[in-house]
């Protein structure tokens, strides 16, 4: 006869407490109530809830209302057959906490690294025509908020062709938005806000801004940022929203900064090729950074820029000593851009 231990249990059907003894019987645990009623529990169905000072507490996998307490000392043969404690969760219990923590940390770090670096590779692989179609589907023609006049359109075409002659696909527009900002949107679109055009003091300044935004388009930064955002939002979905967006912000900021640097590099290269003075851009970035806030949410992919003084210095250094640059546009063409939104009679106000 195997060892009997004291036992009390609830059967998960009524709240009545049952008391008696438990004894090992083959692959079952046999409970005998004081009034003689017996119930046999298959050992593989048992689950250990907790080891408490007042005894072991067990339940059944398929009847979580069932609750068995073995208050006394458990004989070795029975202890060996009873299930182990489910502490952190199956996988972690099997590995042990330290090893599991290291393993998970490794997997998480790898996943983060993939999500952060892969878009830089994948972004340029997405065909520009797809991106353009997707961008058009989301943004369309921006309603009637883009300013249009024949003279202004011609001046914009000339400016973008001078900066980016091989890529007529890039579309540069001026939007009737009174903010000092410019954005590169999905689908190869560059939108300069009228507030920025009004702020610009020369065509060279405007050329610098447009060249920078075209740089974002040509380096596929918009697609990269979208992919990265998508990856991070899936990866960090497990955190609650505050923690998640905090990490999200930190993880993406460094990338936007390096993207800004690349766009600036591109802008300097193209300005030099088009024989436009980079000093205009230098002057403008200096003024822009002083007034630049974070911009609206929907333009988050243009977010933070590197230190303004540093950018300004780089554009100043790019100027060739004693060079005789051509102005990016004639006074008349620049004037056409300045007055574009005012002249376009049916352009609408842009609302958020």
């Amino acid at each position, binding site marked *: 006869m195997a060892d009997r231990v004291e036992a009390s249990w*609830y*059967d*998960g*059907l*009524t*709240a*009545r*407490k049952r008391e008696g003894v438990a004894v090992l019987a083959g692959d079952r645990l046999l409970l005998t109530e004081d009034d003689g009623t017996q119930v046999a529990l298959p050992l593989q169905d048992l689950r250990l*809830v*907790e080891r*408490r000072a007042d005894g072991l507490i067990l*339940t059944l996998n398929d009847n*979580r*209302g*069932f*609750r068995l307490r073995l208050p006394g000392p458990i004989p070795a043969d029975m202890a060996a057959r009873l299930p182990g404690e489910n502490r*952190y*969760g199956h996988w*972690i219990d099997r590995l042990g*906490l330290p090893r*599991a*923590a*290291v393993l*998970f*940390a490794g997997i*998480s770090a790898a*996943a*983060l690294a993939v999500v952060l670096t892969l878009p830089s590779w994948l972004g340029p692989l997405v065909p520009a025509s797809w991106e353009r179609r997707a961008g058009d*589907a*989301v*943004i*369309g*023609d*921006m*309603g*009637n*908020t883009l300013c249009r006049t024949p003279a202004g359109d011609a001046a914009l075409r000339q400016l973008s062709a001078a900066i980016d002659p091989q890529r007529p696909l890039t579309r540069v527009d001026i939007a009737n938005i009174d903010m000092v900002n410019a954005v590169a949107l999905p689908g190869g679109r560059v939108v300069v806000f009228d507030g920025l055009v009004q702020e610009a003091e020369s065509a060279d300044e405007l050329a610098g801004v447009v060249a920078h935004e075209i740089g974002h388009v040509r380096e596929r930064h918009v697609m990269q940022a979208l992919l990265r955002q998508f990856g991070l939002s899936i*990866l*960090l*979905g*497990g*955190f*609650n*929203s505050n*923690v*998640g967006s905090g990490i999200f912000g930190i993880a993406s900021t460094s990338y936007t900064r390096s993207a800004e640097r690349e766009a600036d590099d591109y802008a300097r290269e193209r300005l030099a090729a088009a024989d436009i003075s980079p000093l205009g851009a230098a002057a403008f970035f200096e003024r822009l950074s002083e007034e630049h806030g974070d911009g609206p949410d*929907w333009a988050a992919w243009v977010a933070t820029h590197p230190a303004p003084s540093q950018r300004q210095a780089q554009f100043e250094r790019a100027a060739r000593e004693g060079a005789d640059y051509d102005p990016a546009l004639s006074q008349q063409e620049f004037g056409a851009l300045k007055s574009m939104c005012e002249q376009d009679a049916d352009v*609408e106000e*842009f*609302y*958020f």
Partner: protein
Amino acid sequence: MAGGFGADGRMPDGGDPAEAVDAPASAFVFEGSWREFAPIAFTNLLLTIVTLGIYRFWATTRERQYLWSRSRFIDEHLEWTGTGKELFFGFLLVTVLILVPFGVIQLIAQGLIFRGQGGIAAGVFIAMFGLLFYFSGVARFRALRYRLGRTHWRGIRGGSHDPGIRYGLSHMWKYALGYGAIGLMVPWAMVSLWNERWAHMSFGQLRFRSEADFSPLMKRYLLFYLAPLILLIVGFLGIGAIALGIGAAGDFDREELAWGALGGLIAIGFVAFYLLWGLAYLFFYAKYLRVVISEMRLGDDISFGFSASTKDWFRLILGDAGLVLVTLGVGWIFLSYRHWKFFITHLEAYGVIDPEILMQSDTPMARHGEGLLDAFDMGAI
């Protein structure tokens, strides 16, 4: 007769609780210790970080297992039988069924704005807001149902036959009315929804009932409602008096100093304004919970009470803030412990319960956890 409790804490089936002699009179007793809880909280924190947050569902489960198992009702501890997998599954379900579609709709609405269809976009946003409002009601109901369904006492659990679909509608129109009446009917909405929620809940075969009336709350609610006005008037009067005093003094050397002090006073006044307004809400909320819980019944014979005063709540929140500040944020992992302890310590039950006739609940058990509630970052009961 069946055993009464609340006074002597005795069970009829001979289950004389070991602690009966010097146990406090309350039917609910919390027996946990933060030292026991700490290893759970810290390992949870570690695992949550290294899994990029995915472990938090299992972490919640471990926490609840501990807190429930250290909460005694009369002679037996509660038991949390929910699993991390369930919570995780609930989260996935909400992500796929609600968060992703809403993300897509938001993208479309932004596209509409770009296309200059601001009016349609606004309509889409309003519809989205309405739906979220509806879902937040359903979430609250289903979370309560889930928690009761996973809470066992003497092997018996609670639950509800109602999926909460209609409760979501009630939640919408009652709150709409509550806020619509320039916010004055909010206590009515809160109390009436509490009653409605609990009327659909049961434990074992016993139904919950709640017949609380909102009118005892109105005095405190009005105080909270009018607090900004009162505080502003008091503030302006105070500042005016000080300014007048400075002006009257007219001593040029001291004047500059005095105006600086006035600026400091305004800043202090600003902080005090929010603190006092928060306190006014606490004053209301403490009474709200006491009222609604005291009108709750389980079956015919069991009633409940909640004894936390505004002072108790204030001390809880002050303690929370102090703990988090002193530990530079780490103490945050102990807040759930503190809140549960607070809840159980102040919860009371009176009446008789006969375990011979308390039968298992036949309510359906959802296979997923409170994903919705989780998605809205909402609190417990």
